[in-house]
């Protein structure tokens, strides 16, 4: 197990290198292949009306005139050990992981990401707890009461959840529950250390919106898994031992049905941690997803690259965690 994790961690580093290479290639090499000069690229970084002299300064600072692999090496080196660069007047220290400098915001990328991340992690974790909780509970109930009214009710909710996009559900909930009726707070972010109450209150609507669309999959997955598990021979054995029905369902059947759910949950959570784009953007919350959209609109390439790498990190780590969990949950899997 330990060797597996160590080996996989090396692979994580390799994968992240591949991701940096790909983003670097897309943002620095492809434009030049497309006929863009390095002067035009430099202008994109700083804005339109810049003197030729200032542009040359930018090119020097970014090293746009150096060969590709030198630039890439500098980029990776910055991420690993940090680097120094001039912002025009002073020499700035950019500590590892240095993901570059955004000329649009006049900030370093990594601190910006860290500044936006609490919003995303708050939305992701709260939403994930809700969708997992609701999905598993409704799935188990649906499976146990298969064909009943409650089963059809949950299946109906779940179908609605998949069908309605989160950027519709989120603003609708905000409109009905917050703006028109004052039942819930208008979506906003307050730091949890500042006030846990308003942290949760302000995020309830985004959590609902996120959970509503994600829970559908979990309801169906749990229901299907439970129906299979309840038909398994080992469930009959559990009954034959004289166990109560609740123990049969929650200990024996759910234990078997939970594994695919854990797998998907890890992947989903990893994805959302890299930016809950639609929820954040549609409810005006400044998380990583919103930052990504804004940066793309601003052609703020260093930030976009940084967020891509950040998101990739979470997905890759989620994969690793899922694999380890899988082996923990299923004793037949050997790592």
């Amino acid at each position, binding site marked *: 197990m330990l060797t597996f994790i160590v080996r996989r961690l090396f692979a994580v580093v390799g994968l992240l290198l591949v991701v940096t290479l790909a983003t670097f290639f897309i943002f620095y090499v492809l434009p030049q292949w497309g006929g863009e000069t390095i002067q035009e690229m430099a202008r994109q970084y700083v804005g339109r009306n810049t003197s030729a002299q200032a542009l040359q300064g930018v090119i020097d600072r970014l090293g746009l005139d150096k060969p590709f692999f030198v630039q890439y090496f500098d980029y990776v080196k910055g991420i690993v050990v940090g680097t120094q660069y001039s912002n025009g007047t002073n020499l700035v220290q950019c500590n590892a992981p240095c993901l570059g400098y955004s000329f649009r915001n006049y900030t370093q990328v990594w601190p910006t990401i860290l500044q936006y991340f609490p919003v995303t992690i708050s939305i992701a974790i709260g939403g994930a707890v809700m969708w997992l909780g609701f999905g598993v509970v409704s799935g188990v109930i649906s499976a146990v009461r298969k064909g009943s009214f409650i089963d059809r009710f949950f299946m109906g909710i779940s179908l609605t959840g998949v069908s309605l996009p989160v950027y519709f559900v989120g603003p609708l909930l905000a409109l009905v529950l917050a703006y028109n009726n004052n039942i819930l707070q208008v979506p906003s972010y307050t730091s949890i250390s500042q006030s846990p109450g308003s942290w949760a209150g302000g995020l309830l609507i985004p959590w609902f919106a996120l959970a509503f669309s994600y829970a559908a999959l979990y309801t169906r997955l749990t229901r299907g898994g439970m129906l299979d598990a309840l038909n*398994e*021979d*080992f469930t*009959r*054995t*559990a*009954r*034959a*031992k*004289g*166990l*109560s029905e609740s123990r049969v369902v929650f200990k*024996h059947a759910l*234990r*078997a049905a939970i594994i695919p759910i854990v797998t998907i949950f890890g992947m989903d959570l990893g994805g959302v941690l890299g930016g809950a784009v639609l929820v954040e953007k549609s409810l005006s919350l400044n998380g990583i997803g919103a930052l990504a959209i804004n940066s793309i609109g601003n052609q703020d390439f260093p930030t976009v690259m940084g967020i891509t790498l950040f998101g990739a990190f979470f997905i890759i780590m989620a994969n690793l965690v899922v694999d380890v969990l899988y082996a923990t*949950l*299923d*004793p*037949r899997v050997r790592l």
Partner: protein
Amino acid sequence: MNFEDARSGGPRPFLDVRDLRVHFGTEDGLVKSVDGISFQLERGQTLGIVGESGSGKSVTSLSLLGLHKRADKHGKGGARMTGEILLDGEDLISAEPARVQELRGNKMAMIFQDPLSAMHPYFTVGAQLVEAYRVHNKVSKSVARKRAIDMLDRVGIPQPSSRVDDYPHQFSGGMRQRAMIAMSLMCDPELLIADEPTTALDVTVQAQILDLMRDLQREFNSALIIITHDLGVVAELADDIMVMYGGKAVEYGPAKTVFSSPEHPYAWGLLTSMPRLDRPVQDRLVPIPGNPPSLINVPSGCAFHPRCSFTELCGRYSAVGPDVCREVVPELEQSTGAERHLVRCHLPVEVRQQTYNEQIRTHL
């Protein structure tokens, strides 16, 4: 409660199943999986229930433990059960589900066919044995664990104190079935039901498991029901044999009698289709033609008549006429010879015995 067996007038048997019917309402119609079977079994005795797939033998065994989901008041969504299952005088069909649950795994336990799928893959063998014990006995985990190790030792698992923490997939097939048997014996059940206990096992292991079951039965003095399609399995173990066909018993009697002088054509078919080492290799096995009957549209008259080669002979002797097998459902009636040898066939007893002696026995 004080039940006296009305028919024999003797003391009530330990297990007395009377006219058990298990029907399932499905969209295609009523499935009569078990349609009126009766049998008795004493502690220390073994009953073998033999039949093809779909003859109702497994449904019977699951009914005894109350493992069928019962139908609602409209007769839908589960099994409609009628008749009586008297275990020590207590009827399990009319009993509260909670009461049956109390007895399940405790007074009566089951050994399933395929131990790989019948044991939970994600719990250790020990945890599953401990659970089986602690459901019915208020003891600490360590006490239950000690018992689990003892039982594993008793069923012949080497190094039980370390194997107890293994998962089922780490056991071999035979070991798994031993563990399954240990699990069923955790609470000293008085009634043990083994549903095809050796079908999923290697031939070499089958005999070991059967020996083990025989030893354990002697030791625990439990009543044992072995469900199988393999006559060889019950030949050595059973005191009584019930042959089932289409949800009904077609022949029921002491094992020796059923083996030495079977009287139902279906039982003959089972015997002639069984390979034997003591007959010339050139002899071909005689299969029973056709398929097991649909339990929704059970053939009229004798359920076996479409596959029986003696219907014509039957008609010749019957007062009803040549179509007796197609038209009249035969009763399970006492034959001559051994006491309690019951056969469900229209052929007159003498003709059955003569036919067996002249045409069938010679081919065995």
